């Protein structure tokens, strides 16, 4: 049975493999996961129902993660979700740019369960294991 306030997370990535890996980890943390394969699909999903968290790839066809984040933050209720970039763009310049655009956290690929869990804890979406 689903709890009434189950935390929701939207995983946005054009790789089905990454979406599947992320989904498994995030579901194990007790969240409800949905998926989108690019930025424009993600925007549509957010218009229907705003998630609590968004795990966001950078390079995707149609609309990339950066353009999505800018559009999201301008949209109604779009300042609410915690956005965690999750990308192979691993240089300091890209990270700074993502933070300026309104990202809350940044995950450098490749990631693992520990990292994803720790980052979701850091933005306050998972109670600490300790």
């Amino acid at each position, binding site marked *: 049975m689903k709890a009434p306030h189950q935390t929701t997370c939207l995983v946005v990535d054009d790789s089905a493999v990454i979406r599947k890996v992320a989904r498994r980890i995030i579901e194990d943390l007790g969240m409800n996961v949905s998926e989108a394969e690019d930025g424009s699909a993600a925007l549509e999903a957010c218009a229907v129902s705003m998630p609590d968290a968004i795990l966001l790839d950078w390079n995707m066809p149609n609309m990339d993660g950066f353009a999505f984040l800018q559009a999201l933050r301008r949209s109604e209720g779009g300042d609410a979700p915690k956005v965690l970039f999750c990308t192979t763009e*691993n*240089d*300091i310049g890209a*990270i*700074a740019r993502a*933070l300026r655009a309104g990202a809350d*956290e*940044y*995950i*450098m690929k490749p*990631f*693992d369960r*520990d*990292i994803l869990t*720790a*980052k979701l*804890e*850091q933005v306050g979406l998972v109670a*600490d294991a*300790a």
Partner: protein
Amino acid sequence: MTELEFEYLRNFLKQRSGLALTAEKRYLAESRLTPVCRRFGIASLGDLIGSLKLAQNGAIERAVVEAMTTNETFFFRDRIPFDLFRDTLLPEALARNAGRRRLRIWCAAASTGQEPYSLAMLLQEAGPRLAGWQVEIVATDLSTEVIEKAKLGLYSHFEVQRGLPVQWLIKYFTQVGEQWQIAPSLRAMVDYRQLNLLHSFASLGQFDVIYCRNVLIYFDAPTKSDVLARLAAQLTPEGALLLGAAETVIGLTDRLNPHPKHRGLYGHARPAAARPAEMVPPLRVAAGV
């Protein structure tokens, strides 16, 4: 490895590092020591134990000790001990030491440096409140290998993503190829030294705050008691000792007491009359007002 050889290894480790290896951990010894054999060109675990018995090769002995220690650590591990430092221990120490303007912190099993550097970042964030203060972070570990890594302050992208907020990653680290290196100003704040907790550490002097986390857990009870009593002696009268989540002083020393409110925090045990207000029963506080 024969039963006798394993027994020899257990005694050797207990003497050298305090590690209490239980009989069920034999598989662990075998899997961790096999690479040591390879590294020194030794044919079998039996031969490795044989060379320990000869006591002629310090490098092999150190490699065995270091292979058997667990070095896992990460930035802001368990978070609460660091929130406590920022919100309570640091402000209290600043008030208490305002005259001397001196603050001394010791990380007693610092491993690869994430713990002392987490504290160094919190101190930098405290900014002007520490202007004119002499702040010392002493970080020690048994293993020279981890100390060398800590001094370099170079971390993999996995290491910097466990516990460290990304805002602080870009503020305090620079990219060096695939790795991340902590800022020279933070490296300069930490004084790294090799130190075995089984040996005397009285010469380090007294500290306002001691982090001794996730190391006592590997020792047997008499060793824990001994180390805790000696840690108490290095703690200033109002000093704070922080242990790991699975560690305690209870039943091990009467020189230290758990803090009534904060888990993992310990201070000097004192006679009831000398206790700070917080620990005095409410009736007496009321009577005193």
